[in-house]
């Protein structure tokens, strides 16, 4: 397979097209722009549709419409735009529709900045809209993973009839790295629930999230949570690096995990038994994998480009059985390997 050099945003867009994405609806925002630009150039020639909506709100509702007809559909944005999409995401989840949503995160709150951030972790994993629901959230850490997870996201969204999000950041979107495209089968799957016209052959399908009877609504939510339980058991994914004998396990996802890996290597050179635990899915959070990876650890250290959000899931995953410390930079500042190393040393890793 040929290696080519691509920006994360462009590689993701190309992979989405190869995975059978037929419609893309977006609205311009930095730093995800290359996804839209790439698809604007290529979608039509590939038999797909690119449409720039009048707002993020409209874009996510166009996604709702296209997903209702059963085609593979995607939208992308960055933090402030995802907040605007959250209404539609809740409706999509409540209507059991599959779609793929990209968040190339930037600093917040408010208009924030345009530099890389991971401060939308809580939003993505716990609060992507009103009501009881989850979306699958993948956290790639390289341009190659941007390709791999978008293919997976489409497959899993279809399989579970739910939205899947790719939680990237400005670094992953903007950087170029070698990437190879595996043989990707453009799938769509059989969707008997889709509202694509009944051709007078079956009962009319309804795409809906409204249930005025509390007991009926409760059942629909509980059924969805049965599905979530299965997903938590089967879809949680993580990478453990040098964790087997690690006394301090650094936990980080996305671009931050790359910095943390460099730090772990530096710590090992100093004789510190450090390891890296990198969630590849952040919902579901890989709790069992973390318990295993941290079984010999004395301390865990969560490193994030935020004021500390994933740290909550880490504490829950190990049931607060060990001290969990935090180091983070926010507002678009990227943590330096040296400052993470200082933190590891401060936590007693040098002993």
């Amino acid at each position, binding site marked *: 397979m040929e*290696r*080519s*050099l691509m920006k994360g945003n462009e590689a993701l867009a190309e992979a989405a097209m190869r995975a059978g994405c037929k419609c893309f609806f977006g609205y311009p925002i*930095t*730093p995800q722009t290359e996804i839209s630009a790439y698809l604007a150039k290529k979608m039509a020639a590939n038999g797909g549709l690119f449409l720039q909506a009048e707002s993020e709100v409209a874009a996510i509702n166009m996604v709702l419409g296209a997903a209702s007809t059963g085609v593979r559909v995607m939208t992308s944005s960055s933090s402030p735009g995802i907040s605007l999409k959250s209404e539609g995401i809740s409706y999509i989840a409540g209507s059991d529709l599959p779609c793929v949503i990209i968040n190339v995160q930037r600093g917040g709150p408010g208009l924030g900045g*345009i*530099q890389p951030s991971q401060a939308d972790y809580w939003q993505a994993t716990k609060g992507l809209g009103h009501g009881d629901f989850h979306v699958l959230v993948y956290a790639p850490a390289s341009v190659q993973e941007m390709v791999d997870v978008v293919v997976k996201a489409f497959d899993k969204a279809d399989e579970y009839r739910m939205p899947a999000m790719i939680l990237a950041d*400005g*670094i992953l979107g*903007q*950087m*170029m*790295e*070698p990437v190879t495209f595996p043989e990707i089968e453009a799938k769509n799957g059989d969707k008997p629930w889709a509202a694509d016209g009944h051709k007078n052959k079956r009962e009319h399908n309804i795409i809906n999230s409204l249930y005025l009877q509390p007991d009926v609504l409760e059942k629909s939510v509980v059924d969805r949570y049965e599905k979530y339980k299965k997903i938590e058991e089967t879809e949680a994914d993580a990478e453990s690096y040098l964790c087997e004998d690690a006394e301090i396990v650094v936990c980080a996802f996305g*671009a931050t995990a*790359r*910095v943390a*890996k*460099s730090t772990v*290597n530096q710590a090992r050179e100093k004789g510190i038994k450090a390891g890296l635990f990198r969630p590849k899915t952040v919902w579901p959070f890989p709790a069992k994998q973390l318990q295993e990876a941290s079984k010999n650890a004395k301390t865990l250290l969560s490193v994030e480009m935020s004021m500390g959000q994933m740290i909550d899931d880490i504490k829950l995953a190990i049931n607060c059985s060990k001290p969990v410390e935090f180091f983070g930079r926010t507002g678009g500042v*990227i943590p*330096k*390997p040296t400052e993470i190393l200082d933190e590891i040393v401060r936590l007693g890793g040098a002993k």
Partner: protein
Amino acid sequence: MTYEIVLAGFGGQGVLFAGKVIAYAGLVDGKEVSWLPSYGPEMRGGTANCSVCVSDEPIGSPLILEPAILMALNTPSFEKFIDTVPAGGKVFVDSSMVDVTTDRTDIDVFYVPATELASQNGMNGMANIILLGKMMKETGMFDLPQIEAGLKKTIPPRKANLLDANINAIKLGMSN
């Protein structure tokens, strides 16, 4: 072996392009590479820079904070980055554009009047490539055929006619 490089200048001087040539040369050579641009308002008229990493190992952070190799194409960039270069580093300066020097003695600074050389040799707009040639010669990162391969990948097909001029600019830089 790992090379950590920062290229910086005004938008339009071709620092992102020169960075891509290095990254593509690395790609063709089977190395691990990363290229990370600065992005945002500075792209539109202000200063632009990119971090490039070429390595035999998987690359951690693609953001280079302490570049062992620096290319500075204007004074603000030179001033911004010169003190981030660690001891033993190599700095390539377009002295036609940068009107200051550094007192540091723990690094090698190569002052090349790249813009002047470009205009004397009918290579207007290729100061970045001339300086890239100098960088290749002084660091031994890639030899001429490798950097040629990188250029071939970087120059879009509709501008293929510029390939020879770019190769000549590399050679000119290597001979200075």
